[in-house]
C-alpha cells in the first residue's frame, strides 16, 4: 500500500511539474476557406501533450508557452502549424485537403493514414450507419462497401450474416471477426448504432493477417465515440416508426384450395377431399393476416460528451423497442456506454470503454411461417373464442394457437468493458496494454401452456386432432458467458530522412468460459407469476448443466515502412495457439506482405493536376480460421443413456461420435491487387481491386458411411479446399455546386466466383433437404460453388398421352411435369440431376447518393445481388397432401382447358426435387430513403439549441426481385444448404420519422 502512495505521489509531482511552467492563454477561431467556422478541430501544442478542440462555433482556448507552435488538424483539411509568438488571439483558416484519402483508418492494434495502407481497407462513417433504421451496425453496412455481402433478416433479434469476399469457410465461422475498440468479439448486437464513429473493414491478407487466426473471413473494426476536450455536447436522437412485412406470398383462399384438392383427388379416382358442406361451414382464413402485424418500433438515444485536457468523457444511453411483425414477437433493448480517457501525464494515458446492455426478447418459433404457409384456409383461425382445428383438417397445427400457447422470453444482460493504459516513455515508443472483458448473461423462460383438444376445456371448435398439450411445461435456461482478452503491444515509430518506420510487436491472450444451467418442470401454473421451476411437479423434472471453455494466445508483429511517401511496405506475422486443436497442430503461423506505390507522389506526376490520388498496391498473405466447436477432437462419451434391467434404470454410456483426433488450422491464402484513384482534387475517388483467395484444409462435416456407427454419420475434419476470386470496384463523386447545393453519388460492385477445388478426394457433399421425400437439393462438388443446386431439370408439362408415351416417365399423365432424361436411360432418376447454380451471388452492388440543398438533405442507399439461385423449400417440402397451395400454383395449374406449360396439374403427392422449385435470387432494393430538414440558425439561437434536424425515413422501401417467396435474403447456419428457403422471417419494411437535437 505504501508503495502505491509513493507511485501516486511521484505521478502527481510529475503532472504538476508540467503544469507549473510559465504559460499564456490563447483564444482563437478556426474557419474553412469560405470563412465558415469549423467545430471539432484538434488544436495541440507541438511537442507537448496539451491539446483541445474547437467548440461548435469554431472557438478554442489553449494554454501554452508564448513561443510554442500550435498544430491544427482536422479530417478533410490540411494540417497547419502556427507559431504563437506571444499572440493571445488567433484566427486560423484551414484549407481543404486535396485528398479524401488523407483520412486515418483503423488497421488493428493501431491506425494508419489511408494513403500509407497497402491492404484493402474500407471505411464506413458512423453517421452513415446511424441513418439506416436497422437494429445492428452490421446490417447498416449493407450495400456500402464493395465485396461485403450482408444478409439481413426481419427478425428483431437476428444477427445478420456477413460475408466478405465470398464464402470463405464451410462450417459455422464464415462471419468476419469483429473488433470493438480493439477488443475481439463475435457479436456486436449490443452496440448502439448512434455510438459508432466508424467501421473499418479489412478485406485482404495484408490488412487482416495481424488478426491471423480469425481473419480468414475478413475483419470489421468498430470505433465508438469518445468525448472531445472543450464544451459539453449534448445530443438527442429519436426515431419512431412502424415495421411491416415487405412482401407476402399470395396463398390460395378457401374456394381455390378446395377446388385444387378436389380436382387432384377426383382426377385420381378419389373422392373430393373438401366437401361443399365443409367449405360452407368453414371460413376463409388468410393465415398470414392472422399471425402477422404491423409492429411499432422506436429508437431513442441521448449522449453527453466533453472534457478537458486532463480527461474526456462520452456517456450515452439508448433505448430500442421493436415489436417485430409476428404476433407476440418483440424486442426491447437498453444500452449505456461510457467511454473515458484520462491523461495522467504526458507519457501516460488511461482509458476505459464500458458498455452495458439489457435486452428482453419475446421469441417466436419461426416454424410459424411454415405452419401459416400450410394451414388449410377453410378452417377459421378462431370462432367465438375457440380455435379452428387445422390439425384435424390437414395435419398442421393452428398457427395462432401455437403462438398463443407459448411464451418464450429471453432476458439478456451484457457488460463489455476495456481498460487500457498507453505509455509513451520516449517520443518514438509507445506501449499499450489493454484488458477487455465481455460478460454475457442470458436467461430464457419458456412456458408452454397446457391445452385440451377434447372435453370441457377443449380450446378448439371441434374435438380431436394432433395439436394438444396434456401438461404444461416450463423451461428455464440460465446462460453465463465471460470472456477476457488481454492485449499487450509495443510500437516503435521512427523517421530517418525519407524513411518512415513503424514496428509493432505484441502478445495477446484470450479465454472464454460458458456455463449453462437448465431446468424444466411439468404442471407449472399458467399464471406468469408462477413461472418458476419450484412451482412445478417434481415428477418428470429435468435439470442440466453444461459448459464450454477455450483459450487462445498469440504473438504478433508488423512492420510498416514508407520511403518518401512513395514506396510502401507492410509485413506482418502472427503466431496463434488455440485450445481448439490438438497439441500437435496447435500453433498456426500467419504471414503477410503488402506493397504500395503512391504514383501521385512521384516527381513526374508533380506537374499534372488530373489525379489527386493514384496508388497501386498488392498483397499476399495467409490467414486462418479456428471457428469450430471446442471439443471436436476429443472422443466424448454420450452419458446417461438409459436401459431398464429388471425394472431398474441403469445409466449407460456410449461413444457414438467419431472424432478426428488430428484436426488442424484451416488456412486461407490471399492475393490482392488494387488501385486507389482520385481525380479532380478529390471530387471523384474510388478503388479497384482484384482478389484471389484459396482456402485449404477447410473444416467440414463430411458424411461418413453408416457402417462406422457415428451417431449422425458426420465427421468433422479438414477436407475441403476452395477458391474465391473476383473484382471489386467502387467510385464516389462529391460535388459542391454552390453554397446551397452539394451532392454526392457513389457506387460499388463486386464479383465473386466461388469454386470447390478439392473435396475429400472427390466425395461431394449433399445437403439442403427441404423435407418429405425430396431428398437432397444441393451437391457441393469439385468445380462447383459451395452449396450448388443439383436437380433434375424440368422441361415443360406433358400435354398429351402421346407425349407421355414417348417420354421417360411412363407413369406420368398429361398435366404432369416433364423432366429431362439427361442420361437417356429411359427413366428419371437421381442420375438425371445436373448443376443449376448456387445461392452465392455472383455480383453484389450498391448505389448510394445524397444531396443537401439549403437546409434540406436527402439520401438514398440501395443494395443488390445478382446471379444467386433460391430453392423454394416451403413449396418443395410440402409433403402433406392437404397443405395449402400458392394462389399462383392454383390459378395457373394445368387443366385440359388451361394447358399450361409451366404449372403442372393439381396433384396431392409431393413432387420430386427439380428446377421447378428453383428461382432466380437476384434482387435490387432501396435500403433507405431519408429526407431531412435542419432548422435554420435564426430559430435555433432563439431556442438556445445548436442543431435540430427532423427527418422521415423509409427502410427497405422497395425490392425488385423475381423470387416468388417472402424475400430473396435468408440466413442459414450452414454454407452447404444456404439458399433453401424454409422457415424464413420475411424481409420487413419500416417507415419512420425522427429528430436529431444538439445542445
Amino acid at each position: 500500500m505504501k508503495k502505491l502512495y509513493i507511485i501516486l505521489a511521484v505521478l502527481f509531482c510529475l503532472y504538476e511539474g508540467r503544469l507549473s511552467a510559465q504559460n499564456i492563454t490563447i483564444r482563437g477561431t478556426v474557419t474553412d476557406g469560405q470563412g465558415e467556422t469549423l467545430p471539432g478541430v484538434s488544436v495541440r501544442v507541438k511537442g507537448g501533450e496539451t491539446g483541445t478542440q474547437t467548440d461548435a462555433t469554431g472557438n478554442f482556448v489553449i494554454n501554452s508557452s508564448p513561443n510554442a507552435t500550435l498544430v491544427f488538424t482536422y479530417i478533410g483539411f490540411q494540417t497547419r502549424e502556427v507559431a504563437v509568438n506571444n499572440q493571445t488571439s488567433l484566427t486560423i483558416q484551414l484549407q481543404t485537403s486535396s485528398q479524401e484519402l488523407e483520412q486515418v483508418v483503423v488497421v488493428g492494434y493501431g491506425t494508419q493514414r489511408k494513403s500509407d495502407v497497402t491492404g484493402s481497407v474500407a471505411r464506413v462513417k458512423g453517421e452513415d450507419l446511424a441513418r439506416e433504421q436497422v437494429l445492428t451496425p452490421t446490417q447498416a453496412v449493407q450495400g456500402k462497401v464493395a465485396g461485403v455481402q450482408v444478409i439481413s433478416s426481419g427478425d428483431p433479434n437476428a444477427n445478420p450474416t456477413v460475408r466478405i469476399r465470398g464464402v470463405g469457410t464451410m462450417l459455422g465461422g464464415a462471419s468476419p471477426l469483429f473488433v470493438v475498440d480493439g477488443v475481439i468479439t463475435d457479436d456486436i448486437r449490443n452496440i448502439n448504432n448512434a455510438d459508432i464513429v466508424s467501421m473499418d473493414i479489412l478485406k485482404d491478407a495484408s490488412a487482416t493477417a495481424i488478426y491471423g487466426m480469425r481473419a480468414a473471413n475478413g475483419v470489421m473494426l468498430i470505433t465508438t465515440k469518445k468525448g472531445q476536450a472543450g464544451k459539453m455536447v449534448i445530443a438527442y436522437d429519436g426515431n419512431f416508426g412502424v415495421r411491416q412485412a415487405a412482401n407476402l406470398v399470395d396463398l390460395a383462399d378457401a374456394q381455390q384450395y378446395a377446388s385444387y384438392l378436389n380436382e387432384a383427388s377426383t382426377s385420381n379416382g378419389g373422392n373430393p377431399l373438401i366437401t361443399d358442406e365443409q367449405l360452407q361451414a368453414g371460413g376463409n382464413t388468410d393465415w398470414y393476416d392472422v399471425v402477422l402485424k404491423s409492429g411499432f418500433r422506436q429508437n431513442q438515444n441521448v449522449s453527453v460528451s466533453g472534457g478537458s485536457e486532463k480527461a474526456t468523457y462520452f456517456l450515452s444511453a439508448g433505448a430500442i423497442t421493436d415489436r417485430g411483425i409476428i404476433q407476440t414477437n418483440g424486442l426491447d433493448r437498453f444500452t449505456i456506454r461510457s467511454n473515458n480517457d484520462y491523461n495522467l501525464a504526458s507519457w501516460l494515458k488511461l482509458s476505459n470503454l464500458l458498455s452495458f446492455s439489457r435486452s428482453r426478447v419475446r421469441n417466436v418459433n419461426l416454424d410459424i411461417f411454415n405452419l401459416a404457409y400450410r394451414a388449410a384456409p377453410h378452417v377459421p383461425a378462431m370462432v367465438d373464442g375457440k380455435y379452428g382445428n387445422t390439425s384435424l383438417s390437414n395435419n398442421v397445427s393452428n398457427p395462432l394457437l401455437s403462438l398463443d400457447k407459448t411464451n418464450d422470453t429471453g432476458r439478456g444482460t451484457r457488460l463489455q468493458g476495456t481498460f487500457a493504459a498507453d505509455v509513451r516513455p520516449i517520443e518514438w515508443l509507445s506501449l499499450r496494454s489493454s484488458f477487455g472483458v465481455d460478460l454475457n448473461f442470458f436467461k430464457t423462460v419458456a412456458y408452454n401452456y397446457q391445452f385440451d383438444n377434447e372435453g370441457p376445456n377443449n380450446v378448439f371448435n371441434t374435438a380431436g386432432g394432433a395439436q394438444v398439450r396434456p401438461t404444461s411445461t416450463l423451461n428455464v435456461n440460465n446462460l453465463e458467458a465471460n470472456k477476457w482478452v488481454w492485449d499487450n503491444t509495443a510500437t516503435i515509430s521512427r523517421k530517418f530522412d525519407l524513411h518512415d518506420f513503424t514496428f509493432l510487436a505484441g502478445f495477446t491472450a484470450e479465454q472464454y468460459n460458458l456455463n449453462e444451467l437448465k431446468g424444466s418442470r411439468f404442471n407449472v401454473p399458467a399464471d406468469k407469476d408462477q413461472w418458476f421451476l419450484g412451482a412445478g411437479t417434481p415428477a418428470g423434472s429435468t435439470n442440466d448443466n453444461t459448459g464450454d471453455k477455450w483459450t487462445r494466445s498469440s504473438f504478433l508483429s508488423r512492420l510498416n515502412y514508407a520511403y518518401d511517401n512513395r514506396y510502401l511496405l507492410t509485413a506482418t506475422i502472427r503466431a496463434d495457439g488455440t485450445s481448439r486443436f490438438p497439441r500437435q497442430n496447435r500453433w498456426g503461423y500467419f504471414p503477410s506482405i503488402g506493397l504500395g506505390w503512391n504514383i501521385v507522389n512521384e516527381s513526374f506526376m508533380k506537374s499534372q493536376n488530373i489525379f489527386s490520388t493514384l496508388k497501386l498496391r498488392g498483397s499476399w498473405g495467409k490467414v486462418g480460421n479456428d471457428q469450430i466447436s471446442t471439443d471436436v477432437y476429443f472422443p466424448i462419451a454420450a452419458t446417461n443413456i438409459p436401459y431398464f434391467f429388471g425394472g431398474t434404470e441403469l445409466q449407460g454410456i456410449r461413444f457414438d461420435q467419431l472424432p478426428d483426433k488430428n484436426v488442424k488450422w484451416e488456412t486461407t491464402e490471399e492475393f490482392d491487387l488494387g488501385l486507389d484513384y482520385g481525380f479532380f482534387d478529390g471530387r471523384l475517388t474510388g478503388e479497384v481491386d482484384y482478389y484471389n483467395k484459396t482456402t485449404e484444409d477447410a473444416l467440414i462435416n463430411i458424411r461418413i458411411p453408416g457402417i462406422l456407427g457415428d451417431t449422425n454419420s458426420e465427421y468433422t475434419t479438414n477436407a475441403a479446399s476452395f477458391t474465391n476470386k473476383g473484382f471489386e470496384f467502387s467510385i464516389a463523386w462529391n460535388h459542391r455546386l454552390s453554397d446551397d447545393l452539394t451532392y454526392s453519388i457513389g457506387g460499388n460492385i463486386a464479383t465473386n466466383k466461388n469454386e470447390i477445388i478439392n473435396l475429400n478426394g472427390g466425395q461431394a457433399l449433399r445437403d439442403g433437404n427441404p423435407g418429405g421425400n425430396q431428398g437432397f437439393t444441393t451437391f457441393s462438388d469439385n468445380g462447383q460453388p459451395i452449396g450448388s443446386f443439383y436437380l433434375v431439370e424440368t422441361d415443360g408439362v406433358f400435354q398429351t398421352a402421346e407425349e407421355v408415351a414417348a417420354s421417360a416417365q411412363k407413369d406420368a399423365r398429361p398435366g404432369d411435369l416433364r423432366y429431362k432424361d439427361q442420361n437417356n436411360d429411359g427413366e428419371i432418376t437421381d442420375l438425371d440431376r445436373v448443376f443449376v447454380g448456387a445461392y452465392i451471388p455472383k455480383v453484389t452492388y450498391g448505389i448510394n447518393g445524397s444531396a443537401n440543398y439549403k437546409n434540406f438533405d436527402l439520401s438514398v442507399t440501395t443494395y443488390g445481388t445478382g446471379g444467386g439461385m433460391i430453392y423454394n423449400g416451403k413449396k418443395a417440402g410440402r409433403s402433406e397432401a392437404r397443405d395449402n397451395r400458392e394462389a399462383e400454383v392454383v390459378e395457373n395449374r394445368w387443366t385440359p382447358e388451361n394447358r399450361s406449360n409451366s404449372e403442372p396439374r393439381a396433384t396431392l403427392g409431393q413432387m420430386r426435387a427439380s428446377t421447378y422449385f428453383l428461382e432466380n435470387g437476384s434482387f435490387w432494393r432501396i435500403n433507405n430513403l431519408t429526407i431531412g430538414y435542419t432548422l435554420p440558425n435564426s430559430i435555433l439561437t432563439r431556442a438556445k439549441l445548436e442543431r435540430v434536424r427532423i427527418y422521415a425515413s423509409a427502410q427497405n422501401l422497395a425490392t425488385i426481385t423475381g423470387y416468388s417467396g417472402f424475400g430473396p435474403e435468408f440466413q442459414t447456419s450452414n454454407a452447404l444448404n444456404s439458399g433453401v428457403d424454409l422457415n424464413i422471417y420475411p424481409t420487413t419494411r419500416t417507415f419512420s420519422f425522427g429528430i436529431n437535437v444538439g445542445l
Partner: protein
Amino acid sequence: MKQKHMNFATLLIFIVFLFTIAGCNKFLEVEPQGKLTEDEALSDPNAATNLVAGVYNSLYYGGFGKTTVGFLYALSLDVASDDTDKGSTPTDFAQLGEIDNFTHTPNNFIFDNIWNGYYSGITAANRAIDILNESTFDEGTKNRLLAETRFLRGLYYFNLVRYFGGVPKLIRVPDPSEANNAEFQTRATRDEIYQVIIEDFQFGVDNLPLKGETPAGRATKGAAQSFLAKVYMYQNNWTKVFELTNDVIMSQRYDLVENYNHIFRQNPGPNGNTRTDDDGGNNNIESIFEVQTGINVGENAVSPLYSNGQGPRSSGGWNDLGFGLNTPSQSLARAYELNDTRRNASIIFVQPTVAEGSPLNRGTILWDGFRIPTQDSVVNERYNYKAYHSSIAESAPLSGNKDNKPKNIRLMRYAEVLLMYAEAAANLNNPAEATAKLKLVRDRANLSSSTLPGTLQNIWNERRLELAMEQDRFFDLVRQGRAGTVLRAHGKNFVDGKHEVFPIPQTQRDLSGGRLEQNPNYPQ
C-alpha cells in the same frame, strides 16, 4: 527525456509480463467441460457395464430417425408382408406405402435409417467388446458381459442379413484412417455374416446365465439358444434347430401365457393388477427376449412411435391414439379360424358407422375400457392391438407425449420356440412331436377342439397367426420360398429375384464410392 529511467522500468515489467504468460503453454490445454472423455470413462470401474448398457440402449432407436427394431423397421417388415397395409390416410407416409406396394427404391429414407441404426448398434457393441477384452474383470463377469454384447450384435446382424442380404462385416471398431478400406466398405457374403451371427449366438449359449439368474431384460442362455435355433432354421439345419429348441423347452424356464391377449400388456392379469408370471404382462413366462422400456425423466427409455405410430387414428371428434399406420390386412383378419382368441387379441376392429335411426353402437371397447368410436370418426377399419399401449391402465410418459409410450417390444416368445421345434420335428420325420407342439400353441388359442397334423403347411400357417405383426411373416415367406406366390396373390408387385431383400440404401452406396454393390434388379 526526463523520465527515461522510469520508462525503461515500465518497459521491463511489460516484457516480463509478456513472457510469463507466453511461456505458459499450459494455458492452451483445455479439457472438455462437463463432458466425459475416453480416458475418464475407461478409468471408471463401471465403464464396461455402462458401455454394455449403452449397447442395449440401441434397441430403443426408433421414431422417424435411425432405428434398430423400432418403428420404421417393424412397420416396413409388416407392411411388406400380407399381414398389414400401410394404413392411415392414403397420402400419409408415402415412403411406407412404397414398401407396402413393392415400389420402393434405394432412395427411400427408411432403408438408410435402418442401415444406420443397426450399424450404430453394432459399432457400440464392437467398442464394448474391444474394451471388455482388455478389461480386468473376473472371467465370469467379463464373459457374461461379452456374451450379452455379442448376443445383441448377433441379433443385429441377423436382422440385417435377412433385410439386405450380405452386408459389410465389422466385428471391431476400425480406426478412422482405415475406415475407407475395402474390407469395410464392401459387402461380405451372406454366409460370412451368418458365420458371425452363429459365433456370436453360440458364445451366448456358452456363457449366458439362464432366465431367472439375471435381471429381466438381459440376454439369457435361452434367448441365445432360441435365436441360434432361428438362425439355423434359415439355414435349414434342422438337427441344430431341434437340439436348441429342445434345450430351451427342457430348461423348464418357459411356458405359454394362459391368455393370448394378455401377452402384450404391461401388467399381467385381466385388469393388470395381479402379479402372476403365467398371465402375461411385460417379461412374462413366455418372454424369451424383449426390449425393456420404462418411465424415466428423459422419456428416452422407450422405442419412440412404436405404439403411437400404430395407434387408432381419428378422423375427427375424439382425441385419437396415434398415426393409424400398419393396419392389419383383411387377409389376416380372415385367416383365423372361428373361436381363435388370437384374432381379437391381435386386431382392433372398428365398428361400422350406424345408419340414421338404427340402435346406438358404442363402438369398440378396448380391454382397458377405452372406447373407440364407430367408423365415421376413425380413419381405418382395423388397427394393431399388439402395439396398443393403454393410457388408462398402463404407465404414461410424464410429459403426456404420446410418441413416447413405454411399450416393450417382444422379440422372441416361447410360442415361436415351440413352432420352430415342431417345424424341425416335421423336417426330421418326427410328425408326432410336430403335431404335439403345434397343438400346444393352438390349444392356448382356444382351438383345442380340433387337432391339426404337424405338417409344414400347418406349421407355417400357425406361425403367421401366432406371430402376426411381430415382424416375422415377410422373412418367413422368403425363407419358405413362397414370398412371390403369396404376396402376388395378395395383390402386391412382388418381383422374384428382386424383392426377397430390400435395396442397399443409395446414400450408403454413394458414401462407399460405389463399392457397396446393389442387390439384384434394383436400380444400380
